[in-house]
């Protein structure tokens, strides 16, 4: 009686917890771009100048600058991650002016200080004296000069170099370019030794701030080229999500019906374990902050099919023992024991493959593999241990005493 009671309480409490928490949990699952729309770009980073080294620090710096650019452009939750030694993956959701954002992100926006070279037309400068990497990152700040005019000052990394340049160009112009746009072409009036260059002019605060932002954003330590891009319209993403979830639900219902029809009471327990398994998986997604992508959902649904395996293997084995004439109690015991090894072996092999996929995959493949691994681990817990524990409680409580409850016909049982 006590066993039956704890069985009922366990099931009821779990069912209640799942029923209450599921809607909230589902809302908190982070959806991938393929499900909510947005775009993803994989950049390959190269040094801005030939022969320069690509360091981890410069890659991280570039990623940080990209994120800032995306933020400045007013996108929501840009996600920037580095990959390998020279790649940056950028994901932005819900962008309306995609083309503009993409263009802005890709723009190298190289800040250069240039002087006039022989043959340059009046007011144009082509000899590059300083490049973006010569400036301190986020170097541009706005302030006011002695005449209370707004002034943008930019810090240079190498004071001495800057001093040399200004000494050489004394009396001439040193123009400041952002890409090929001339921002200003002040005359060098003195040798500058404090390593700060200033741009002043008739700017409003707004203009100056924009300019400073652009210069800072422009100071990308690395040059980026698009290697891979994917953009999904919001409508299309939602459509994929709905279709796939629907497919998953229908598939799952069929699996549950199959299990109950085939294995009766143990099938019912297996179905409960499966639902628990799915709920736990969603829980993991929310707490580990995984992003659910379309392949992720596919893995999810396949995993349900695979998690069922453990139950089928166990239940078939139990039935087999019963048919050979053993008592229900010892059939369950023997069946659970001998099926355990089989289930572990088959799960370990799948984990091996998933781990390889995770190691070699990129983007969505990694996501798929991760879901698969988490799923198998959870399934060992729910469909092996938990389901068996529930079944044992029922058997010991004496509530499972007829072979029919296992879907075994009396006629199939051979006498010992």
């Amino acid at each position: 009686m006590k066993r039956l009671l704890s069985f009922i309480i366990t099931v009821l409490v779990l069912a209640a917890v799942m029923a209450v928490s599921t809607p909230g949990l589902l809302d908190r699952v982070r959806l991938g771009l393929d499900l909510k729309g947005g775009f993803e770009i994989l950049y390959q980073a190269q040094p801005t100048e030939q022969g320069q080294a690509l360091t981890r620090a410069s890659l991280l710096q570039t990623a940080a600058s990209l994120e800032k650019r995306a933020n400045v452009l007013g996108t929501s939750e840009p996600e920037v991650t580095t990959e390998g030694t020279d790649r940056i993956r950028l994901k932005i959701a819900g962008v309306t002016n995609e083309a503009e954002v993409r263009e802005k992100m890709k723009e190298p926006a190289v800040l250069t200080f240039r002087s006039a070279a022989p043959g340059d037309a009046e007011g144009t400068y082509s000899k590059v004296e300083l490049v973006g990497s010569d400036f301190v990152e986020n170097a541009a700040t706005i302030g006011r000069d002695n005449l209370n005019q707004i002034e943008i000052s930019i810090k240079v990394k190498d004071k001495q170099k800057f001093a040399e340049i200004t000494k050489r160009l004394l009396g001439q112009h040193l123009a400041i370019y952002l890409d090929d746009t001339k921002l200003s072409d002040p005359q060098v009036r003195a040798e500058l030794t404090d390593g700060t260059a200033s741009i002043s002019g008739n700017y409003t605060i707004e203009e100056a701030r924009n300019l400073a932002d652009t210069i800072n954003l422009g100071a990308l330590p690395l040059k980026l080229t698009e290697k891979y891009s994917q953009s999904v319209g919001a409508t299309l993403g939602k459509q994929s999500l709905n279709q796939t979830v629907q497919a998953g639900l229908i598939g799952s219902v069929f699996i549950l019906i199959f299990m109950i029809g085939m294995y009766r009471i143990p099938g019912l327990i297996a179905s409960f374990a499966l639902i628990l398994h799915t709920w736990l998986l969603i829980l993991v997604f929310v707490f580990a902050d995984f992003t659910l992508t379309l392949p992720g959902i596919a893995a999810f649904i396949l995993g349900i099919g695979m998690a069922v395996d453990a139950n089928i293997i166990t239940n078939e084995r139990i039935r087999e023992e019963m048919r050979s004439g053993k008592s229900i109690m010892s059939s369950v015991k023997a069946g659970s024991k001998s099926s355990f090894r089989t289930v572990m072996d088959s799960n370990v092999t799948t984990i091996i493959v998933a781990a390889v996929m995770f190691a070699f995959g990129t983007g969505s493949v990694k996501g798929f593999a991760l879901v698969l691994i988490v799923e198998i681990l959870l399934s060992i817990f729910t469909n092996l241990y938990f389901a068996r524990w529930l079944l044992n409680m029922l058997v010991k409580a004496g509530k499972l005493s007829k072979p029919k409850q296992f879907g075994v016909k009396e006629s199939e049982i051979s006498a010992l």
Partner: protein
Amino acid sequence: MRFKKELDYVHLSKYFYIFSITLTILGIIFLAMFNLNYSVDFKAGSNVDVSLSKNLTVDQIRTAIGNIGTDHEPNITPGTQRLTIRYDEELTSQQDAALKSAISKLDDKASFEVNTVDTEMAKELARNAIYAVLISCLGIIVYVSIRFEWRFAIAAIVALVHDAFMVVAVFSIFRLEVDLTFIVAVLTIIGYSINDTIVIFDRIRENLRFGKQKTYDDLKNLVNKSVSQTIMRSLYTAFTVFIAAFFLLVLGGESIKMFSLAMVIGLLFGAYSSIFIASPLWLLLKKNQKPKGKPAKA
């Protein structure tokens, strides 16, 4: 739903070997002649999937996107309220934007999915996929050799490679598009179809412990017995995953159609090969193992 009579699976397997070998040869011929129908994931270029709110003809689309400034003619595949436009070149973001606005003029509710892959990247993806398959196989060989014995490992790998290759062959023969999710599907099949094989092998290993198998016939009976003891399990487990994959194929999102299809095909071959390829193959390997130091049958 039980097989009362034990079928002679080992004997039957001869016919299935012929079937599998024929399909393999056919697959190799097709692969050699036509290769696979690679999507942009492996071939560099741009793929545009458009979901429309009304039906547009290919000509309408072609006229609309004719002047976005591409060098190659796009390959347009229409569907019901759906359209796939393929370029053999990578669309620049300007061309991308021009294409979207051109189609949006025809249908303002159009929704797009654009994938662009650079050649170098595509090659890298393909290379990684091949490594992944090889390393997975290696991992499985090691694991099965430790848990069982090398003969089981060999038989399991042959069955695995068979399953994976069959999917590739079917995709090649029917010119189905191979994208990144296809690789994922093939890897999943490798990981999954071994499950079935392991179930049967586990049973063979268990049965081996009961009594000595002195002759080939003893071994053959053992394999037949093991297969018939586990066949329902194999079929049921394959069936449940099949249900999941099947509904994904029929009702799931468009972009995982090929994935689901590959899974469905792979699962069918996986169940088949575990029963008719892997176990008889193990028997074949085992047969040649001469009893150590024991005299031949008295």
